[in-house]
C-alpha cells in the first residue's frame, strides 16, 4: 500500500511536475492569505497585514525549493536545469567550448586507446587454461654478460629436466622452424614459418585441436613418421577450410608430412606468424636431439598445485648443474631460471607500452589543467553573478554543481568524440606496431567503455572542481563589497591559476624530456654505422632442402650458377651470398678454442657469431679488408678449413698479436676441427641496438648441406633495388621451380624493421609532447591575457603617472615567465626521474643527455616567451585615458 502510494507520487512528480509545482505555489499562497487575514483581524491595515505576513513567511522561493527538494526526481530536475544552463553558457563562447572539447577528446581518446592496448597485451590472461600457472624456464650462464641472462634451452637439457625433476606438473618445449611448403599437387611453393612443439605442449596449455588430433608421444622423436598440425589461418588460407585435409600429405622441404590436426583460431602462440607445427623431436637429427650445448628451445612449465615456481626451478637448476659438471668442455649452463609466461611473451613491449600510457596520462592531465584554467578565467568574469546568487540564498552546492556541469559537458562531449577517435586509432596503433604480441586480442569492449566513462568523470572532476570551489568560496561575498572600480585581480585567484600553470609546465617538460630522449635514441639507431653499405642493396633469402641438395657438389652448383645468373642481370653492380646480412639479427654463434692456449674447460668468453659467405661478399657490401686476404674460389668443398674474422674478433682473442695464419678449433660441421685465419675485416653490427660482437666467417663454397644450404643473396644495384626482386626470383625459379624465396628486403628495410618499434614509440611520445607544449602555450597565453585585462586600470594609472612602456612590458613578461621558470625546474627534476625509468629502452643516449635537455629548455622558453609576448605588448600599448575611463 505504502509502496503503491510512493510509486504514484513519484510518477506524479516525474510526469506532472508543472502541475504539482503550481499546486505547491497555491498551497503556499493559501498559507500566506490565511496569515494576512489573521493580521487584518488583529486590526492592521490590509497593506500592513500583507507586509507583516510576507515578513513572517520569509523567503518564499526558498521554502518552495526546499519543499520541492523532498520530491523524488529532484536530482533529475536539477541536473537537467544545470545541463540547460551549461549548454547555454558554452554556446555563448563557442570557440572556448570547441577548443576544450577537442583537447579533451584527444586526451581521453589517446588514453583510452593506450589502455585498450595495455589491457589486451599486458593485463588480460593468456588464452590458456589457468594461464597464471604457466612459466617459461630458461638456462642461465653465470658468466654471461650478453642479453638478460635468460638463455634458450638445448634439447638434451630439456629432456633431462623433464625426466629427472617433478617439481612442475609438466614441461613442454617448442622451437622456431622454417619450411619450404609445397603441395602434393604442385601448388605454388612458399616459405612458411613453423614451430616444433613437444607432444605434450597442447595438453599442457589446455588447448584442443579443432580437427583431428594432437601429436602422439611416440611421434615426438627425430626418426618418427612425419606428421604436421596446421594453424587455423593456414588451414583457411591454403586449404580453404576443407576438413578432408586431415590424413592427407603435404610437402615440407620436399618431405611428405601427414596432416593430423588443425589448431583453433584462438591459438596464435607464440606469435601469429607461425603457420604450422611439427613434433619437436622431428626438428632435430638424433645427435642434436641429445645435445646439451645447442641452445634453441623455449620451455614452458605448468606449476604443480602447492609448489612454487621458485622451488620447482631450484630442482631443475640442480639437474642442470650436474649436466654442467658432466660436460665441462661444452657450453652447458649452470642454472635454470624462470619468468611467468605472460611476461615472457610481452617482454619487449612492456616498457614502451607503459611509457606511452604514462605519456598519454600526462597529456590528459595537462588537458584537464588547461580546461580548468580556462574555466577559472571564465569564472572570474562571473564572480558578481555568483556572489549575487549566493546572497539571494543559492546554496554553495547548487552553485558548484552548476559549474561542474559545464566541465562535465565538455568532458562528456570530448569523451564521446575521444572514444570514437580511439576506436579508429586503436586498430591503427595495433596494426602499425610491428611485432606487437597478442595484437589479435585487442578490441574495444565493456571494460574499455567503463574505463573511458570513468576517465570522463575523473577529467570533469579534475577540470571543474577546482574552479568551482574557488569561485564559490567564502570570499565570494567580498566581491559585492568591492568598489565597482576594482583595481587589479584578486591575488589568491591568480595564485591558483599560476600554480596550475606551473604544474602544467612541469608535466610538459617531463613529457618533452622523455620524448627528446626517445627521439635522440631513435636517431642514434637510424644513423648507427652498420659497418657496410646500406643503400641500393637488396637481400633475398632462400634455403636448399637437404633432401634434394644432399651433397656438397649439388649445393655449390646451385649457389654458383644462381650467382652467375644474377650477376649477369642489368643494373646489378655486384652480388654475393651470406647466411645472414648485417643488422638482420644474431642468427647463430659458436664457441671455439685456440690451440696453444687449450682450455679443457668450456669458457663463454670464447664465443663468436658465425656467418657463411661467398668470396665476393666483403667487396659487394664494402666491408674493408684490414689484413690478410678474402676468400677466393679455392676455399671450396673439403678444402674449407679457413675462416675470416672481424676486427673485434682479432682484438678480443688475439690482442697485440697478428691473427693471420693462426688456428682456432671450432665445431662448424658437427665435430671440432682446426680452421686457419686468412684475413681480418671491418666490424659489422648484427643488430643496431646492440654492441659489436666478434664474428667469424666460414666459406659457403664448402657446400656442406645444412651449414651452407641456407643463404641470403645480397645485391648492389644501380637503381631502385626493389625493381630487381622479380628478375632475381625468376632466376631462382629458372634453376629450381619448387624453390621459394622469402624476406625480400632492402638493407634499409632491414634497418627499419629493427628500429620500427623504437621509431613508433619515439614518434608517438614526441607527438604527445608537442601537443602538450601547444596546450601549455595556449594555457600561458590565456592566463596572461586574463591577468592583463584585470590590470588594465592599474597599468593605465602607472603609465599616466609616468611609467615607461618598456617597464610595463618587463613587469608583465616577468609575471608570466615566473611560473614558467618554476615549472621548468620542477619539470627537469621529474624529467630526470622519467629518464632513469626509460633508461632500458634508450640506445646510446644518456638519460641526462645535455643536447636534449638544452634544446628542450630552449624550446619551452621560446614557446613561453611567444605566449607571453602578445599580452605583454598589448599591456604596454594601453592608452591611460582609455584605460581609466574603462569600466
Amino acid at each position, binding site marked *: 500500500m505504502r509502496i503503491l502510494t*510512493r510509486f504514484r*507520487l513519484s510518477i506524479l512528480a516525474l510526469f506532472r511536475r508543472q502541475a504539482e509545482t503550481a499546486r505547491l505555489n497555491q498551497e503556499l499562497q493559501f498559507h500566506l492569505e490565511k496569515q494576512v487575514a489573521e493580521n487584518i483581524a488583529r486590526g492592521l491595515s490590509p497593506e500592513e497585514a500583507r507586509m507583516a505576513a510576507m515578513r513572517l513567511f520569509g523567503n518564499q522561493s526558498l521554502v518552495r525549493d526546499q519543499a520541492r527538494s523532498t520530491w523524488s526526481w529532484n536530482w533529475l530536475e536539477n541536473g537537467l536545469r544545470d545541463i540547460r544552463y551549461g549548454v547555454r553558457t558554452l554556446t555563448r563562447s563557442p570557440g572556448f567550448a570547441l577548443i576544450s572539447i577537442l583537447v579533451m577528446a584527444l586526451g581521453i581518446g589517446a588514453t583510452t586507446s593506450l589502455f585498450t592496448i595495455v589491457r589486451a597485451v599486458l593485463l588480460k590472461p593468456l588464452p590458456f587454461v589457468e594461464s597464471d600457472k604457466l612459466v617459461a624456464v630458461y638456462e642461465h650462464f653465470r658468466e654471461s654478460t650478453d642479453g638478460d641472462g635468460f638463455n634458450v634451452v638445448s634439447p638434451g637439457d630439456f629432456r633431462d629436466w623433464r625426466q629427472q625433476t617433478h617439481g612442475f606438473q609438466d614441461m613442454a618445449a617448442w622451437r622456431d622452424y622454417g619450411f619450404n611448403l609445397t603441395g602434393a599437387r604442385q601448388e605454388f611453393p612458399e616459405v612458411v614459418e613453423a614451430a616444433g612443439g613437444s607432444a605434450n605442449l597442447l595438453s599442457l596449455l589446455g588447448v584442443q585441436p579443432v580437427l583431428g588430433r594432437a601429436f602422439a608421444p611416440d611421434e615426438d622423436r627425430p626418426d618418427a613418421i612425419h606428421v604436421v598440425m596446421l594453424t587455423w589461418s593456414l588451414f583457411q588460407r591454403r586449404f580453404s577450410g576443407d576438413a578432408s585435409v586431415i590424413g592427407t600429405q603435404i610437402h615440407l622441404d620436399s618431405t611428405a608430412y601427414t596432416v593430423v590436426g588443425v589448431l583453433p583460431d584462438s591459438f596464435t602462440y607464440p606469435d601469429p606468424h607461425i603457420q604450422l607445427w611439427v613434433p619437436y623431436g622431428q626438428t632435430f637429427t638424433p645427435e642434436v636431439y641429445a645435445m646439451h650445448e645447442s641452445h634453441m628451445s623455449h620451455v614452458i612449465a605448468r606449476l604443480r598445485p602447492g609448489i612454487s615456481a621458485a622451488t620447482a626451478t631450484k630442482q631443475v637448476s640442480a639437474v642442470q648443474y650436474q649436466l654442467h659438471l658432466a660436460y665441462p668442455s661444452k657450453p652447458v649452463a649452470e642454472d635454470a631460471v624462470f619468468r611467468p609466461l605472460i611476461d615472457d611473451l610481452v617482454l619487449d613491449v612492456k616498457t614502451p607500452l607503459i611509457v606511452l600510457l604514462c605519456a598519454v596520462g600526462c597529456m590528459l592531465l595537462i588537458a584537464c589543467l588547461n580546461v580548468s584554467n580556462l574555466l577559472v578565467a571564465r569564472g572570474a568574469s562571473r564572480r558578481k553573478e555568483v556572489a549575487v546568487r549566493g546572497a539571494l540564498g543559492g546554496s554553495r552546492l547548487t552553485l558548484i554543481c552548476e559549474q561542474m556541469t559545464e566541465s562535465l559537458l565538455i568532458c562528456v562531449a570530448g569523451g564521446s568524440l575521444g572514444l570514437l577517435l580511439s576506436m579508429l586509432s586503436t586498430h591503427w596503433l595495433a596494426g602499425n606496431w610491428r611485432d606487437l604480441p597478442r595484437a589479435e586480442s585487442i578490441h574495444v569492449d565493456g571494460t574499455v567503455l567503463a574505463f573511458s566513462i570513468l576517465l570522463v568523470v575523473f577529467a570533469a572532476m579534475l577540470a571543474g572542481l577546482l574552479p568551482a570551489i574557488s569561485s564559490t568560496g567564502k570570499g565570494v561575498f567580498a566581491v559585492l563589497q568591492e568598489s565597482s572600480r576594482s583595481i587589479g585581480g584578486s591575488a589568491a585567484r591568480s595564485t591558483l591559476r599560476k600554480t596550475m600553470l606551473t604544474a602544467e609546465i612541469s608535466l610538459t617538460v617531463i613529457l618533452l624530456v622523455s620524448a627528446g630522449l626517445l627521439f635522440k635514441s631513435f636517431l642514434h639507431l637510424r644513423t648507427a654505422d652498420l659497418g657496410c653499405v646500406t643503400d641500393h642493396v637488396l637481400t633475398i633469402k632462400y634455403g636448399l632442402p637437404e633432401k634434394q641438395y644432399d651433397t656438397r657438389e649439388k649445393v655449390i652448383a646451385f649457389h654458383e650458377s644462381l650467382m652467375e645468373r644474377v650477376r649477369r642481370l642489368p643494373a646489378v653492380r655486384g652480388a654475393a651470398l651470406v647466411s645472414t646480412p648485417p643488422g638482420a639479427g644474431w642468427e647463430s654463434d659458436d664457441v671455439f678454442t685456440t690451440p696453444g692456449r687449450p682450455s679443457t674447460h668450456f669458457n663463454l668468453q670464447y664465443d663468436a657469431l658465425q656467418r657463411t659467405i661467398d668470396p665476393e661478399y666483403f667487396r659487394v657490401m664494402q666491408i674493408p679488408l684490414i689484413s690478410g686476404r678474402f676468400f677466393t674460389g679455392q676455399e671450396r668443398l673439403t678444402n674449407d678449413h679457413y675462416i675470416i674474422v672481424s676486427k673485434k674478433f682479432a682484438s678480443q682473442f688475439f690482442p697485440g698479436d697478428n691473427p693471420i695464419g693462426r688456428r682456432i678449433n671450432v665445431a662448424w660441421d658437427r665435430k671440432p676441427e682446426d680452421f686457419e685465419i686468412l684475413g681480418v675485416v671491418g666490424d659489422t653490427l648484427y643488430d643496431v641496438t646492440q654492441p659489436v660482437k666478434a664474428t667469424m666467417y666460414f666459406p659457403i663454397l664448402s657446400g656442406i648441406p645444412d651449414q651452407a644450404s641456407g643463404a641470403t643473396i645480397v645485391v648492389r644495384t644501380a637503381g631502385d633495388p626493389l625493381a630487381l626482386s622479380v628478375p632475381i626470383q625468376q632466376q631462382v625459379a629458372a634453376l629450381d621451380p619448387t624453390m621459394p624465396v622469402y624476406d625480400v628486403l632492402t638493407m634499409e628495410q632491414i634497418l627499419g624493421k629493427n628500429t620500427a618499434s623504437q621509431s613508433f614509440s619515439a614518434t608517438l611520445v614526441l607527438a604527445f609532447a608537442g601537443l602538450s607544449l601547444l596546450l601549455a602555450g595556449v594555457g600561458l597565453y590565456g592566463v596572461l591575457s586574463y591577468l592583463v585585462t584585470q590590470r588594465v586600470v592599474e597599468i593605465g594609472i602607472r603609465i599616466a603617472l609616468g611609467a615607461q612602456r618598456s617597464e610595463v612590458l618587463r613587469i608583465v613578461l616577468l609575471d608570466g615567465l615566473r611560473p614558467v621558470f618554476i615549472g621548468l625546474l620542477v619539470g627537469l627534476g621529474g624529467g630526470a626521474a622519467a629518464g632513469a625509468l626509460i633508461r632500458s629502452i634508450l640506445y646510446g643516449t644518456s638519460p641526462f643527455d645535455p643536447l636534449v635537455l638544452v634544446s628542450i629548455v630552449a624550446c619551452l622558453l621560446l614557446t613561453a616567451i611567444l605566449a607571453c609576448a602578445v599580452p605583454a605588448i598589448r599591456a604596454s600599448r594601453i592608452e591611460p585615458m582609455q584605460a581609466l575611463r574603462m569600466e
Partner: protein
Amino acid sequence: MGKPSDLVQGTLDLLILKTIMLEPKHGWAIAKRIQQISNEVLQVQQGSLYPALHRLEQQGWIRAKWSETGSGRPAKFYSLTKAGRAQLEREKESWSRLSTAINLVVEGV
C-alpha cells in the same frame, strides 16, 4: 524568554502526525494548532513545515487531498494513512523514551 524556542530536532514529524491524527488539516491549520496547544511555545516556521509535509507525503505516512475550506477556497488537506498511524506510534514511543531519559539526567543530578 523572548523568542519561542526552536523545535527539538526531529520532533516536527511527530507533532505533525499527532496534529492530524483526528481529522485532516491544511498546512496553516497544522501550524496554528501546534502553536495553540503548546501555549504559543512551539512556533512552526513555514520554511520547516512545508518541506516536512512534502517529505512525509513522499514517504507515504500522510495523504494529501484538495478540498474546500469553510470559506469555499480550495486548500490542501493532509490526513494520516494507515502506515502513518503506525509511524506515529513508533515516533511517540521513541519520544517518550527520549524525554524520560532526558528527564532522568536533568532531574537526577
